[in-house]
């Protein structure tokens, strides 16, 4: 047996061993970061040390990061740190309701389809499959164009994007639990469908949905970011992460810090969301949803 052969064997043995969930520092760092970002977004108007994001000449124009302007300033001298925090406020206040509605609507559709099966499942599944095959951003662009660029219209557009994926995962989970012994036993004991659905199946699907919410949050933040990056989200003078980055693109040569700082914050937030979501899914052993 050569060395390479033993590696193959060893690799296979390792693959069959159950994976232990990691309880790593990275998880706590992620949670801490998310807490910071959310706290910043919620408390932005009351944070004394935070500049007014619209005030020109909060520092010298187009200055790099410094002690007084942590993320530097843009060409009007507005404080980029304040703009990043206020940007997170709008991005998160779209993502929050969008994910909430997406999880409720997608979750109900998926659970009902998975539990009842037959034609309901066929109807929901075929709509979901078609929706998943379409480029979501094109669809979101279309909705926002048709309805107009306002906070709620953007929220509606990105909500619709999350529904198919969430419904698919909820359906798979419902299917898995509907066949479990405790549901069958409850059925044999005379429980009717509302009890079976709401008391037996649904509570088991909820933890998976909660962890998917983290992943969906990341997707929604990217979707809203893309829309505002191409100029089709909530209009000016609203500040979003996407339109800060779009403005930073024009100033890459003179002030790269505009794109790099906000881009970095956005990247860190998305990574933290994915990390927490992925970790939760691993603990719950949900296979359909792993990103």
């Amino acid at each position, binding site marked *: 047996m050569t060395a390479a052969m033993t590696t193959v064997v060893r690799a296979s043995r390792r693959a069959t061993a159950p994976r232990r969930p990691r309880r790593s520092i990275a998880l706590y760092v992620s949670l801490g970061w998310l807490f910071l970002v959310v706290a910043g977004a919620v408390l932005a108007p009351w944070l004394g040390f935070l500049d007014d994001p619209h005030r020109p000449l909060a520092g010298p124009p187009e200055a790099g990061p410094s002690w007084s302007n942590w993320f530097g300033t843009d060409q009007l001298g507005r404080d980029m740190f304040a703009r990043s925090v206020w940007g997170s406020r709008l991005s998160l206040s779209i993502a929050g309701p969008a994910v909430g509605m997406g999880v409720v609507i997608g979750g109900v559709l998926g659970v009902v389809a998975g539990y009842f099966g037959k034609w309901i499942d066929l109807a929901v599944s*075929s709509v979901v499959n078609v929706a998943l*095959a379409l480029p979501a951003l094109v669809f979101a662009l279309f909705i926002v164009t*048709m309805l107009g660029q306002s906070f709620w219209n953007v929220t509606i557009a990105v909500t619709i994007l999350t529904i198919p994926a969430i419904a698919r995962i909820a359906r798979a989970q419902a299917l898995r639990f509907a066949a479990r012994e405790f549901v069958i036993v409850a059925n044999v004991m005379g429980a009717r469908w509302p009890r079976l659905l709401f008391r037996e199946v649904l509570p088991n699907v909820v933890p998976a949905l909660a962890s998917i919410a983290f992943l969906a949050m*990341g997707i929604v933040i990217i979707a809203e*970011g*893309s829309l505002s990056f*191409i100029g*089709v989200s909530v209009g000016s003078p609203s500040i979003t992460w996407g339109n800060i980055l779009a403005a930073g693109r024009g100033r890459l040569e003179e002030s790269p810090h505009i*794109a790099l700082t906000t881009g970095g914050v956005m990247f860190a937030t998305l990574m933290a969301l*994915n990390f927490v979501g992925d970790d939760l899914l691993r603990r719950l052993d949900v296979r359909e949803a792993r990103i």
Partner: protein
Amino acid sequence: MAALRFIGVRLAQLAVVVLVVTLLFYWMLNLLPGNPCVAAFGGAATPEQIAQCEQDRNLGDPVIVQWAKWGGDVLTGDFGKSYLTGRTFGEAVSNALPRTLLLLAYSQILALGAAIPLGLWSGYRQGSAGDRLITGGAFALLSAPVFVVGLVLMLLFAVRLDWFDLSGYQPISDGLAAHFKVMFLPAVALAAGLLPIYLRLLRTDVIGTLQEDFVGTARAKGLPVRMVLLRHVLRPSSFTLLTIFGIQAAQAVNGAIVVEFLFDLDGVGSLLVSWVAAREFLLVQTLVALIAAVFVTVTTVVDLVYAALDPRVRRR
């Protein structure tokens, strides 16, 4: 016979879905308050012009008749035109489409070209430091929005190092060097989003396949590891890659819209964005309906190829 029947069923499903999806997009425009023909002229039209547009678009008819007439026009090659600029839909799209298709093709080649060796290797060396580096990197890439990746690439390689141009699209006919100088960074930015998805799936597959007996047999025959990985381990995973390729096609187009905007490539995505900005509802509607139709078709074709390669699928 069974195969023919399978193809027939899938094609019938495809036709139904295309009809329903385009009708849906058509019907949504009717939900708009106001007259799309008034909007199409940017609010500066004579009553005759509006009447002409209304007649072109059959606005007097019920939605389903409008849609049927639109479908007939599209099938005979009449896609409408911009009432603001007089440019036809066909001209605009035929100019933009090659750019988008090239961008998509390059990014898929880059993504697969990197994902296959990395995925094979990290699956084979599961748990090693290299594997953890690759999976960690893939996880980070998965969290990076395409516009952030694009901006960083732009800053590093076009602004700072000046290796690439940001001059907008250059066709291949202007020379391959000029073409790739503008297309390489956008393709890398787009590939960065696709790579981790391919890589992670392939890695999972490889770990599963390595446990199969035939892998041990191949090794026992004395085949070198590289041959075993390429010939015996990669081949069963091609199904997974094909499936995910179909699913990711839609994802790639999302990214392409943003990348084209970022790098001024004036592809189909940029066209869509500029029409949206100019409130060219009628053109947006036709383009979105066509994109939807193309995607539903791509998914069906992938399904059929899948069935051709793997007989088990047909019996489901």
